[in-house]
């Protein structure tokens, strides 16, 4: 094997310019893929974190049918007090769950005594909400940025609404809502902060203390609209979702009548489609890399075989078995792939590190000042390199096979 490798390396050096061109092409492909993967996955992760840490959580639990009607925030589809207690118990007993926040969501009228508009309100337990959605504080552009912003009697007003209504921190406003029995109730509240928008559903909601929500809706016991859940390992979100679902199902006698529905953030946010598109683009970019490697290696190896016909004839004549001749060319193609992959990996890591240091800022939807800090998962680097190496072998197969099948007598006659 060592001799095969030595001969392969020397043949690569023998056609220095051509080998360099091939290695550069492969390296370019690897750089393109890895930088794209780094930037796109960092962008995706950043946006997902923005969405999940700002308001959505990684998982949500609702009563069955609630999500389908979520635009109307139906109070009659809230979880019953007992169901809410049961769900909370499951979440407390699931170690994979980092924190959770129960919410009462309802539609209401927002009045500053001169104008009135509608608002979607979340009644939350402040400590739990800030723990589950840690970026909540960063969205508060004016006013108190701590849990005190959601003390009883206070409201965090969405920025768009505050601008439209001219509301400022310290202003007194009235929230009026209809409860599920149809009676109307209102409560005077003080604006404690202005909440900047975030991309996706719930990004323009206002927040109040859960007790205030119960008071406005005249609830005697907590009827929860949704549980927002933060998990410890978001990359295992599907498995954790299934686990929570199973544990909730275990609490009911008839699983067919399971009252709970568990949704991941991807099932609730339209950004999941963008994330899927990014993933799809990554697949296309990888396909391009495969094409680049395939064509480059195939071309260079066909040339190598064509130019070394007499040499192949000689080594075949002196008794080199076809398998060894096949190996000679496969190893040569493999080394071209490895060199290209290594060069590409080196340049990619340098570019990604440069981009990381640059801290490129951008806006996406309502979110502004997002900082892109691309990083690359070593697994992605390994996949790209393995792909290049695998395709290099594949591309070398045909020329290598052709070389190994050459009749020495014909090859020796070749001019």
């Amino acid at each position, binding site marked *: 094997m060592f001799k095969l490798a030595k001969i392969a390396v020397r043949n690569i050096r023998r056609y220095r310019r051509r080998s360099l061109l091939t290695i550069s092409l492969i390296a370019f492909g690897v750089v393109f893929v890895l930088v794209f993967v780094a930037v796109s996955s960092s962008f995706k992760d950043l946006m997902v974190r923005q969405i999940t840490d700002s308001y959505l959580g990684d998982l949500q639990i609702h009563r069955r049918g609630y999500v389908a009607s979520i635009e109307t925030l139906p109070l009659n589809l809230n979880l019953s007090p007992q169901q809410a207690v049961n769900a909370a118990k499951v979440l407390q007993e699931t170690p994979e769950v980092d924190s959770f926040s129960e919410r009462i969501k309802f539609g209401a009228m927002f009045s500053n005594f001169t104008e009135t508009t509608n608002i979607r309100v979340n009644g939350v337990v402040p400590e739990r909400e800030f723990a589950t959605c840690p970026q909540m504080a960063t969205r508060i552009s004016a006013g108190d940025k701590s849990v005190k912003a959601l003390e009883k009697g206070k409201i965090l007003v969405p920025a768009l609404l505050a601008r439209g209504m001219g509301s400022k921190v310290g202003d007194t406003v009235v929230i009026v809502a209809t409860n599920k029995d149809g009676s109307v109730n209102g409560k005077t509240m003080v604006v404690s902060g202005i909440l900047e928008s975030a991309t996706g559903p719930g990004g323009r909601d206002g927040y109040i203390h859960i007790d205030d929500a119960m008071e406005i809706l005249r609830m005697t016991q907590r009827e929860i609209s949704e549980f927002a859940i933060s998990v410890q390992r978001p990359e295992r979100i599907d498995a954790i979702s299934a686990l929570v679902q199973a544990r909730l199902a275990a609490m009911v006698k008839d699983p067919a009548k399971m009252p709970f529905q568990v949704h991941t953030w991807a099932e609730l946010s339209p950004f999941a489609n963008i994330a899927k598109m990014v993933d799809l683009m990554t697949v296309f970019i990888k396909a391009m890399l495969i094409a680049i490697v395939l064509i480059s290696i195939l071309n260079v190896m066909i040339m190598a075989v064509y130019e070394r016909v007499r040499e192949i004839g*000689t080594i075949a*004549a*002196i008794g080199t078995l076809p398998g060894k001749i096949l190996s000679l060319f496969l190893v040569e193609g493999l080394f071209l792939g490895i060199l290209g992959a290594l060069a590409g990996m080196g340049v990619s890591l340098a570019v990604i590190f440069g981009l990381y240091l640059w801290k490129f800022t951008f806006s996406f939807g309502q979110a502004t000042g997002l900082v892109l800090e691309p990083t690359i998962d070593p697994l992605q680097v390994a996949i790209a390199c393995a792909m290049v190496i695998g395709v290099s072998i594949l591309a070398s197969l045909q020329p290598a096979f052709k070389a190994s099948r050459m009749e*020495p007598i014909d090859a020796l006659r070749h001019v």
Partner: protein
Amino acid sequence: MSLIVAHSLTKTYATESIEVKALQGVSFEIEAGAFLAFVGPSGSGKTTLLNLIGCLDKPSSGRLAVADIDVTQLERKAAASFRGQNIGFIFQSFNLVPVLTAFENVEYPLVMVQEWPLVERRERVLKVLKAVGMLEQKAQLPEQLSGGQKQRVAIARALVTQPKLVLADEPTANLDHETAYRIIRLMKQMRDNFGTTFIFSTHDTRIIGEAEKIHTLEDGRLVEDQERRAANV
């Protein structure tokens, strides 16, 4: 004892329009340890005959045994294996692997064909290189060697596996007379040193006289056998 026995060998190359009879019923026997030349004009069938003996090609008809093996029946892989174990080749254009040094070229059959262990391999290669007078140039690439030196390396490569038979097709065609003569003398000396049978083809009248036995071919037929320095060559 005969190393090679050929009986009624024919070889016909057929194209779409014509049929070329390269060999027409050639029969002969060659003893082990012979230093023999096939001579004749271009197109007389010398190379075809060497290709058949070297298991690089198969006859259209007839029998051919090399070292008691019916080589006409060997499959592709078996033929390669047989060549690797029993036959050394010397080519007109030297055919050294350009990326390997003189040492590595000679070492090649021991690594890629016979898989000798490192220490024995090295010892053997140095011995053969010394025998052909190329020890000092062992680290040089073929492009750094003269024609005569390249052919010396090629002879060393052919001998390194201790084959029963070395086939040389026009080994001196690309060399000047003096070098050609030295190469033929070297081949003979190697035969004496290693006991290997040497068969070469040539139409160079200046070196034919070095052969101990000469088979003359004309139009694919063996026309005469001459023992040692035939008068009419």
